[in-house]
């Protein structure tokens, strides 16, 4: 199913992710998942040319190659082993888009465990770098399966730190804390409210506000006029379809 312009849901998600890096300048974009990876590459190819992308291993790569590019096809410009990644994280020159198994109204994210941490019902990957990322540099999240199970009243294990928790932790946590946006398969969300709780920023084409409210396990702030996530330009759409993702990996992560 597509909207009238023939833009698929996955393509709207890519655009929403790309726009997270608009105006970012010369910083490292660290996308997790195919849709954010395409968003970062689209942004670098068009309106954010100074973005720095890694090859997924231990180097920075020139340009914005297709997702299908093989390692031997990549052109590398500098080394970026994990030891150096932490220097970048703690310098703040990074905007990451992590995934979230659970996210809540305050912008807390969970990738550690479902249930009680001491006796998890479901063990996830672990907090990884989420605690440090979220208090050191801009952090956004990608949730490919927006539902009351992923958008929850309270996450089970706070991995990435949201606004209220950062405020309670004091200046050490708030100085560089900046949870920017959440992109889901249904819409885009930010924290531009007086108490920094989650707000619906835009709904993707073909999605209603009711769809979003029904799939969200807490009270969202809904503006009077809800914008629609912008459509890609013809150039962006062509770049995405023919250069960056010719095999449509985007459609595996988000069904139309």
């Amino acid at each position: 199913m597509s909207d009238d312009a023939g833009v698929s849901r996955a393509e709207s998600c890519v655009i929403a992710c790309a726009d997270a890096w608009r105006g970012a300048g010369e910083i490292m974009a660290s996308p997790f998942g195919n849709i954010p990876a395409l968003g970062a590459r689209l942004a670098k190819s068009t309106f954010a040319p100074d973005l720095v992308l890694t090859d997924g291993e231990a180097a920075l790569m020139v340009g914005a190659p297709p997702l299908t590019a093989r390692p031997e096809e990549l052109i590398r410009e500098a080394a970026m082993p994990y030891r150096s990644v932490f220097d970048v994280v703690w310098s703040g020159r990074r905007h990451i888009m992590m995934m979230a198994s659970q996210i809540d109204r305050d912008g807390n994210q969970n990738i550690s465990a479902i249930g009680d941490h001491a006796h998890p019902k479901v063990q996830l990957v672990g907090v990884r770098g989420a605690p440090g990322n979220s208090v050191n540099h801009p952090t956004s999240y990608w949730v490919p399966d927006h539902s009351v199970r992923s958008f929850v009243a309270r996450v089970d294990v706070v991995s990435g730190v949201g606004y209220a928790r950062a405020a309670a932790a004091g200046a050490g946590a708030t100085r560089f804390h900046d949870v920017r946006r959440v992109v889901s398969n249904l819409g885009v969300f930010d924290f531009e409210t007086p108490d920094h709780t989650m707000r619906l920023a835009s709904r993707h084409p073909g999605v209603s506000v009711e769809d979003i409210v029904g799939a969200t396990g807490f009270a969202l702030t809904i503006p009077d006029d809800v914008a629609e996530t912008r459509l890609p330009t013809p150039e962006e759409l062509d770049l995405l379809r023919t250069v960056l993702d010719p095999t449509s990996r985007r459609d595996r992560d988000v069904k139309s």
Partner: protein
Amino acid sequence: MSDKRTTVDDIVGELRSGMTIGIGGWGSRRKPMAVVRALCRSDLTDLTVVAYGGPDIGLLCATGKVRKVVCGFVTLDSIALDPHWRAARQQGRVEVMEVDEGMFFQGLQAAAWRVPFLPTRAGLGSDVLTVNPDLRLVRSPYGADSPFLDDPSDAEVELVAMPALHLDAAIIHTNRADVAGNAQILGPDTFFDPLFLGAADRRFVTTERVVEQGSLTDEGPLNTVVIHRMMTDGVVESPGGAHFTANPPDYGRDEAFQKEYAASAGDAEAWRAFAQRYLHVTESEYQAHVKEPSAS
């Protein structure tokens, strides 16, 4: 010059139940798997394992060697979650000290620098501090009147005091080493292997090939020799010793084998068959088995 060549069995022979063991590598990359396999075969129990977790953690948990894991994650990279680790956690068979992966780095660094902790913002506001109630905060002694204060928001700021992660022993795997205990990493990332050695009392390197002292520069540029002999106590030539994890440029990850490993968590019979074929055997039998077509 002392010759530091030893054997995997002698390394395991030095370890005791209850010890804290650091394992180098990252996820399913350049893990000292020959030693992990030997640990699985050993009588050791109640280990605390400190690692950027991969199949080392899954295997040691599946064989009942582990009391506690210190980590920021456990992943097989191409398979996001290690089912053996998930089973151990979900069945309550193992404790975990779960920290941010940058905090983990600082814990190793603190141990290597012989200070009790290092301060960091990482962890503030997160449940890392609630699930690890022994972690403490530290207040900066630099206030508004200090000539060293860079930003007013940092005046007497509270940060996490990441404690030193002291290790009884550390084991890493490298591409090359020499008989004197210098070691070389030819792949793109040294990960935190030098810090694991720095944090440990007893320090062991397994490697694809051992060469004469002074010959590592024939294998690659001098700046790939990131481990010097003051950092090591024993060296073992263990070709394929990182299998099935990635060890470029010598070999990539054995994805088919990794799938077999992950699938073996599915049921008791699958695990018995996997253990019989790959764990209850010598390292040379293991290396022969993994070159044969899979039985399954």
